């Protein structure tokens, strides 16, 4: 049993050292970082990508990858707003979630039934979904018309934005699921050794399928909240989402080889990226140099974590 209490986790994770270092830098180099309003701001900023990263953690632990999340966010935003305009907000949200789940099912079926590798499947789906998003939106962006929906993501509950609350709930629930439930433990088995799991009678295909469905579900939720934040349905938003999400998950110590990783780790990974971006913005490090720093962060993380991957050749 893994009694992986949060505290133990804090002690033996490198990503936490990086986060700590960043927080110290943020405190030293900016006056604004450690203010209540900025911290609230950061929480809101990381929430939507964070929710998607929770889903992506499942996929990566199960030994796969999902590159189609960015396109799906765009599709979800378009559907949410267009249906909101035509009918009402709940219909928009429900259909968006349904669309997300369908994409997840399609990814999962192509991977488990047809046997195309996750990388290739989701790469193809990325193009496909983008086409659909453009078609649905007629290549325009559309404004939302429901002021309540527009307030949804930012709406403070005990001072914390709703989107951030949802993110935290997803983190806690998903972590509990992976660590404490029988099915959750199965994900580590399936990702760690798919053949052994199958021979032990696990329906590995169903596990993998559900990972993609869950990831797409999270993407739909994240996408809806992002749509609420910008109150716009646009076929070309979320260009960075795919990269950010995968980076966050790997930064958090989840292994691309499958079978290793935690949602708490992903939470830290999301924080690292969020804090770094916020800090650089506050410091006025803009444009080109921000690009270079983010790139270097990825490379350095890999270097720092190399020993961790040693055992997986």
């Amino acid at each position: 049993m893994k009694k992986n209490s949060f505290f133990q986790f804090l002690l033996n994770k490198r990503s936490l050292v990086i986060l700590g270092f960043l927080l110290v830098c943020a405190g030293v180099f900016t006056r604004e970082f450690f203010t209540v309003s900025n911290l609230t701001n950061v929480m809101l900023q990381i929430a939507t990508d964070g929710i998607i990263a929770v889903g992506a953690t499942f996929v990566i632990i199960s030994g796969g990858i999902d590159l189609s999340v960015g396109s799906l966010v765009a599709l979800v935003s378009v559907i949410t707003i267009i249906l909101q305009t035509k009918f009402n907000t709940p219909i928009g949200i429900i259909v968006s979630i349904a669309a997300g789940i369908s994409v997840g099912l399609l990814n999962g079926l192509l991977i488990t039934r047809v046997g195309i590798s996750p990388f290739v499947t989701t790469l193809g789906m990325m193009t496909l979904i983008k086409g659909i998003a453009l078609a649905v939106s007629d290549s325009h962006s559309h404004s939302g018309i429901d002021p309540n929906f527009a307030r949804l993501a930012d709406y403070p509950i005990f001072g914390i934005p709703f989107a951030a609350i949802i993110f935290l709930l997803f983190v806690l629930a998903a972590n509990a699921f992976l660590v404490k439930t029988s099915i959750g433990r199965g994900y580590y088995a399936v990702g760690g050794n798919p053949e052994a799991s199958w021979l032990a009678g696990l329906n590995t295909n169903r596990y993998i399928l559900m990972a993609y469905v869950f990831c797409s579900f999270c993407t739909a939720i994240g996408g809806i909240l992002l749509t609420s934040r910008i109150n716009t349905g646009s076929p070309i938003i979320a260009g960075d989402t795919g990269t950010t999400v995968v980076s966050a998950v790997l930064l958090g110590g989840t292994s691309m080889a499958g079978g290793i990783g935690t949602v708490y780790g992903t939470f830290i990974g999301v924080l690292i990226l969020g804090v770094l971006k916020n800090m650089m913005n506050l410091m006025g490090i803009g444009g080109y140099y921000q690009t270079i720093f983010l790139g270097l962060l990825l490379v350095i993380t890999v270097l720092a974590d190399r020993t961790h991957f040693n055992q997986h050749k």
Partner: protein
Amino acid sequence: ADKPVTVGFAAASSGWPWYATFIQHVEDRCAKNGWESIILSADADVATQLNQVLDLIEKKVDYIIIGPLDAKASIPAIKKAHEANIPVIVIGNDLDKEYWDYVAAIRVIDDRDLGRNSAEIMAEVLKDSPSKKIFVVDGLAGQPAVTLRWEEMKPVFEKNGIEVVASEYADWDMVKAITVTEDMITRFPDIDAIFSMDGSMTPGIVQVLEESGMEDIPVVGLGGTATELELVKEGKVVGTACQSPGMNAEDAMDAIEALEAGETIEKRMTVNTPKTFAANADDCPGDW
């Protein structure tokens, strides 16, 4: 009051030449005034842009210039800045009238003007032609600039009997424009003229025509990049609608200086996008 004025600029992408020029002007003007500037780039990601505006608000800058990737999607960010009492100057992409109350100033190059002016040049070119078939090498699918330009291009084309037989996206990318143009002249060897949605792609179109010996097909550009202007001067492009990010930036900075001085200013001003031909090409700065 002793604290220098800080201008925050949330640019759509510092990797786009239009914005690079704009940024240069903002930085120069701020430096001249002894002000500080914080330049952030959303790298073409809408959510990033929203986040960057929020960070500028946290930073408590005195003015925010925003070059929206998507004007509609930038409204929430603009409202937040407004709530925080930071004057916002919108540049690049126009804003619907209902949101004008939230911003201090709008200093834009109107994409509709650009579209109309270039379309009118096209109408002029094909005035006497018996057949008026053109194709359009388009920008990036889903971008507001594309939508707005078409809004005004369409009626001009219709009025003048110009038939757009096809339009293909080339993502503002010179290399893709080459491929698209090649494919299109294969498909429509008897095309009467070609319309380029943006100066960054025009040289590619001209090049394809030269390579395939079809230089006599007229090309109409849009935007007035330095290279496009060069082609206009050489007569390889009939004309273009000139836009200057530098002039736009100066207008935006003028507005900020006026606000700082406590003057009242006009809410919305647009930068001229004059029709530019070989004869008057030198009037266009071609600064991007």
